[in-house]
């Protein structure tokens, strides 16, 4: 092992981690505003990747230009799922029910994707996918850098929307306390629907980058959702900043373990880190202490 390997693992961690951070932010936003754990986030990422794939194969649309179509498309998918199924859930078991409902939705999507695209692995292609440039002895893949820029760009615009617009104020109010938000005249239901749409829309970008850097099929979603869930728990459920930091941190640690020890333990290291952190901070790194609601 040498310093170059470590340096390149660190670089991978930050570049890939930002994409995970983007996908996890969608998940934590949905949980924070709606108390819904969207287990379908993994398959929605894959759906986003397949949309890019379809555009590329059938209409020869470039991956990044294709995002102009896939992001709004995934936003609509999110709104439809919320309107059809999730909006009706209520009562004390809402969160548990939401896991089952979104799991059922993910089974449906998985079955449909298997039928349309078959179970063979595919990977997104483009002239930039397999090229790299070097700074010193560290190589930077174009697609990883582009993914990093895209993730940072989308996360910043999400931040801008949340902290600088009127709608963002409503979202943050709903994150803090839904009842009070409703009392000051915020249409929490509408905010929820739009947040779910946004949370799902980011999977289009995340899925495109994921699909260009990994080969995937519908069952890849299980691996993805387990990582995303770990990230949002580590960051503290409902905390946007926590999700971003944990996303980068987890991939970084995984890559480091892969270089120092062995790649077979790198994905396990996520879960071990999670277990250790939770021993000392049960609410996650940036989570709020659970407070009595009723």
């Amino acid at each position, binding site marked *: 092992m040498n310093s170059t390997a470590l340096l390149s693992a660190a670089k991978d961690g930050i570049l890939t981690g930002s994409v995970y951070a983007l996908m996890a932010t969608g998940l934590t936003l949905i*949980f924070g505003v709606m*108390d819904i*754990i969207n287990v379908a986030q993994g398959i929605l990422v894959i759906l986003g990747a397949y949309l890019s794939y379809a555009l590329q194969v059938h209409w020869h649309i470039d991956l990044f230009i294709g995002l102009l179509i896939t992001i709004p498309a995934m936003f609509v998918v999110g709104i439809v799922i919320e309107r059809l*199924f999730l909006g*009706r*859930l209520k*009562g*004390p*078991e809402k*969160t*548990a*029910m939401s*896991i*089952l*409902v979104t*799991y*059922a*939705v*993910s*089974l*449906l999507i*998985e*079955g*449909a994707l*298997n*039928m349309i695209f078959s179970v063979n692995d595919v990977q997104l292609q483009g002239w930039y996918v397999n090229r790299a440039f070097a700074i010193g002895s560290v190589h930077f893949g174009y697609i990883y850098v582009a993914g990093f820029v895209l993730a940072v760009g989308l996360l910043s615009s999400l931040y801008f929307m949340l902290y600088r617009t009127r709608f963002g104020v409503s979202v943050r109010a709903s994150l803090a306390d839904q009842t009070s938000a409703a009392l000051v005249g915020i249409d929490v239901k509408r905010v929820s629907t739009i947040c779910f749409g946004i949370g799902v829309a980011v999977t289009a970008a995340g899925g495109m980058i994921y699909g260009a850097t990994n080969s995937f099929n519908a069952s890849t979603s*299980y691996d993805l959702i*387990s990582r995303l*869930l*770990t990230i*949002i*728990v580590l960051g503290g*459920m409902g905390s946007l900043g926590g999700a971003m930091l944990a996303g980068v941190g987890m991939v970084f640690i995984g890559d480091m373990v892969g270089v120092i020890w062995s790649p*077979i*333990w790198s*994905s*396990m290291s*996520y*879960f*071990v880190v*999670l*277990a250790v952190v*939770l*021993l000392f901070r*049960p*609410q*996650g790194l940036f*989570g709020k202490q*659970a407070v*009595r609601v*009723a």
Partner: protein
Amino acid sequence: MFEKKNLWWLLGAAVLAVFPLIVTNPADTSIAVFTLLFMACATSWNMFSGYSGYIALGSSVFYGCGAYTMALVSIHAHMAPGAAMFWLVPLAGLVAMLVALPIGWMALRVRRHTFVVITIAIFFIFQLAAINFNFTGGTSGLALPFIQWGFSYYNVPFYYVALGLVIFITFVSAGVRRSRFGLQLLAIRDDEDRALGLGVKVTAVKIAGFTMSAFTIGMAGAVYAMFVGQIYPQFVFDPVFDISVALMAFLGGLGTLAGPLLGALILESSQQYLTVSFSNGSLYLILFGSLFLIVIMFMPRGIVPFFTDRTKRSAALKVAEANNQLAGAGAGSAQS
């Protein structure tokens, strides 16, 4: 003393007891063995998650530990293949409890929503460990001592052992529900802070419940390992198992006694049937997902509460009508 309700339970037990005498086709009895194992697991899961409201989605950790205990001990002790291996089943349950104790200690420090996700994470730790360690045989799995019972007879001992597990866990679960301990679990579900305020040692009660529920799931895993004869990490540590067990309890009615039994009976047998009739895996996923959504949307509280609520409501209506008539008669007589 002998209520109508108990009669239904006895009838169910009797039907299950004679089932393999009537249906002898091995393909059908093997579906029945799997269904019984799931009935035991769902009831055991419900005994903690249903009563306490802490939804655990990592039950296959215990199932897998039970299965690996059975496999490793029977292989390394060079056991003669045969019925003697059934003695390992309770041991597998104890190992599952030993595994559950530290997990519960760690995972039950957080509130409900986070607990769900942590159990999923712990599940993945175990699955990855089983794939990567050497003593588990990795992805090629472990082959148990080969049991040479006749093809037509093979399923029957497993059927009755599995039925024994179902009866055992049903009695335990019913006993827990009536006990002080069960009431404490229910109090935690309804309002954990108030239960704490009233002197319930919530953490100890939760950990005890969690560990107890691991016992039967571990035993079921051991029976499964013996039944199929060869185990693989991706099948004993299976995310679909985690979700299925929870789903069966939800389908039947969370926190009820008959609910998980009914849910597992319906779901596992129909799932096996669908797999057999639609060899196309994706179509099966779509059908299963839609069925699942329809049930959750129309019977959000499960089958058992759906029907008991109805009978209760109609009984309440009758009482109300009778009261109205009485009141009307009373008012009439007062006027006259």
